């Protein structure tokens, strides 16, 4: 945590020196948002409901999509791309001789602070939708949403981590991550609108569904307990799996697996 805060401060100082980046990023986020809303408006000009989702429910989903996407862009993607480069360039050695957990260290070594605007926008969207939906607040629902969001974040992180760790064997895995990025785009729509096979793939192979649809469902009070349970199970399982693969990868890297 201490290390995280220092990293955050250091990165913030760096980004503040390049303030124009902030405006570029803000513009990018806003135009991205505008297109998303335009898409929604287009769909809902034909129908009042999409796969059981009303327009503001779907707006909340877009909010979750932005928030999780922002988290990926803020820390997961830059750190893990750096990590893959470290493997190629041999600078991973430096992380490995530090007296802190190396997986944690590489997972937060690089940040793009301005990507947090996406998280803020997402939060704003969620708040706006909730207001429009006149949702009755209950701690249970807030708790469910927080849990689902945490699960989603862990699942996305673990998935990235597993992909990135493959770099121990394959050296170049950036392409795999590009595929993930485009698949993540699918998460802006409820998982239910996709045909069965794709739904299965987006749930279990590339677990985008848990990252966006499930939290949005929890938020709008439509998450069944078993879905939340499954998401939590998935999160724990993937986290453990990521750790196991990391350990195997390190053993491979140091030549202990032979």
């Amino acid at each position, binding site marked *: 945590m201490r290390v995280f805060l220092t990293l955050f401060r250091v990165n913030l100082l760096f980004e503040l020196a390049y303030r124009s980046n902030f405006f570029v990023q803000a513009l990018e986020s806003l135009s991205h948002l505008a297109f998303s809303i335009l898409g929604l408006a287009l769909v809902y000009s034909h129908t009042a409901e999409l796969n059981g989702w009303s327009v503001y429910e779907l707006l909340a989903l877009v909010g979750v999509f932005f928030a999780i996407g922002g988290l990926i862009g803020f820390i997961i993607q830059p750190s893990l791309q750096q990590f893959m480069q470290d493997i190629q360039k041999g600078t991973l050695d430096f992380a490995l*001789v530090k007296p802190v957990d190396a997986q944690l260290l590489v997972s937060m070594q690089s940040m793009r602070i301005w990507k947090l605007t996406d998280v803020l926008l997402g939060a704003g969207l969620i708040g706006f939708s909730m207001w429009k939906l006149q949702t009755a607040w209950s701690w249970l629902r807030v708790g469910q949403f927080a849990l689902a969001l945490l699960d989603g974040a862990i699942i996305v992180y673990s998935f990235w981590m597993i992909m990135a760790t493959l770099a121990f064997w394959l050296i170049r895995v950036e392409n795999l991550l590009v595929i993930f990025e485009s698949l993540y785009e699918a998460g802006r729509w409820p998982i239910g609108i996709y045909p069965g096979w794709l739904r299965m793939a987006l749930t279990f192979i590339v677990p985008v569904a848990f990252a966006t649809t499930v939290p949005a469902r929890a938020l709008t009070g439509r998450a069944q307990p078993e879905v939340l349970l499954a998401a939590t199970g998935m999160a724990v399982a993937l986290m453990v799996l990521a750790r196991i693969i990391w350990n195997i990868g390190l053993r491979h890297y140091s030549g202990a697996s032979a």
Partner: protein
Amino acid sequence: MESDSAAIVHARDLTKVYRVPVRESGLGAAFRSLFRRKTRDILAVNRISFDIREGEIVGFLGPNGAGKTTTLKMLAGLLYPTSGTLKVLGYPPWKREKHFLRQITLVIGNRSQLVWDIPAADSFELQRAIYNIPRDQFRETVAELTELLDLAPLLRKPLRNLSLGERMKCEIAGALLHRPRLLFLDEPTLGLDVTMQRRIREFIKYYNQRYHATVLLSSHYMADVEALCDRILVIHHGQLLFDGELDELIERFSTYKTIEVQTRAPEGDLSRYGEVIERSDGYVSLRVPRKETAKVTERLLAELPIIDLTVEDPPVEEVVERIFAQGHAGPAPDEEAERAPGTAGGRGAS
């Protein structure tokens, strides 16, 4: 060789075999290789044994691919030894226990651990957080290093705006903030100009004396080794060819000496005394087999009008080059019979 229980590094029959995948091209083949890999074994380090005591500066010499980096990496806990015993600071290094890692540091020439885009001072803060260095001690160390390495004008600039030498100074400072007891320096002066090399050497020596730190250094530059190292390990083809002092290395491996004479008789053939390397009026430089040095000197003095005469060891580079050129042959040919490859490498001197 005495077995010292106070040794900071204790290695016996240390061996590293790399299992290198033989891979076909293409993503499909790469994926298949995840499950079924064709491999071949490469013997990088072959049963080497040595002890290093606290406060020593030890140089690892060897051509590229000789196994010296592999050895250093095993000692630093980055590589898992295939066989043999290894204890560093009393720990098995490959387990990378926190108490072990807190006491070591790693500097690799041409590779940066500080963050490229931000000033070194901020990277130092990060090191402070990682090592949980008390604020007072941190301030004191930074102040000391800043003075010793002239970092004051560099610390606030982004790393990428610095020259290679300036960056290396920052790297070294960053690697020493937690006051490690054991330093692994892999080619720390790589690519630096001569002044900067000297600067860094002086600093390493200072740090070694000030903190009684142990330094393990690998370098291509003989000057580094000559200036710094009390002791040298020569590794070649994964075997330890020599372990001892620099003078001893020259003693054992150089089969020639150089005799330089100033004479009043510049004419005449001198090749009957030895191989003439250099000659300009009145000055001659001769290469003479080591064992005949005394005899030749005597003859020169008796037969020629000599003004001045000096006998010198050949430059270290030359000696080391000769060792490497000999390859598997082990110690100098006139010392010992060739050892069969695969048996233990030279246990070194005494």
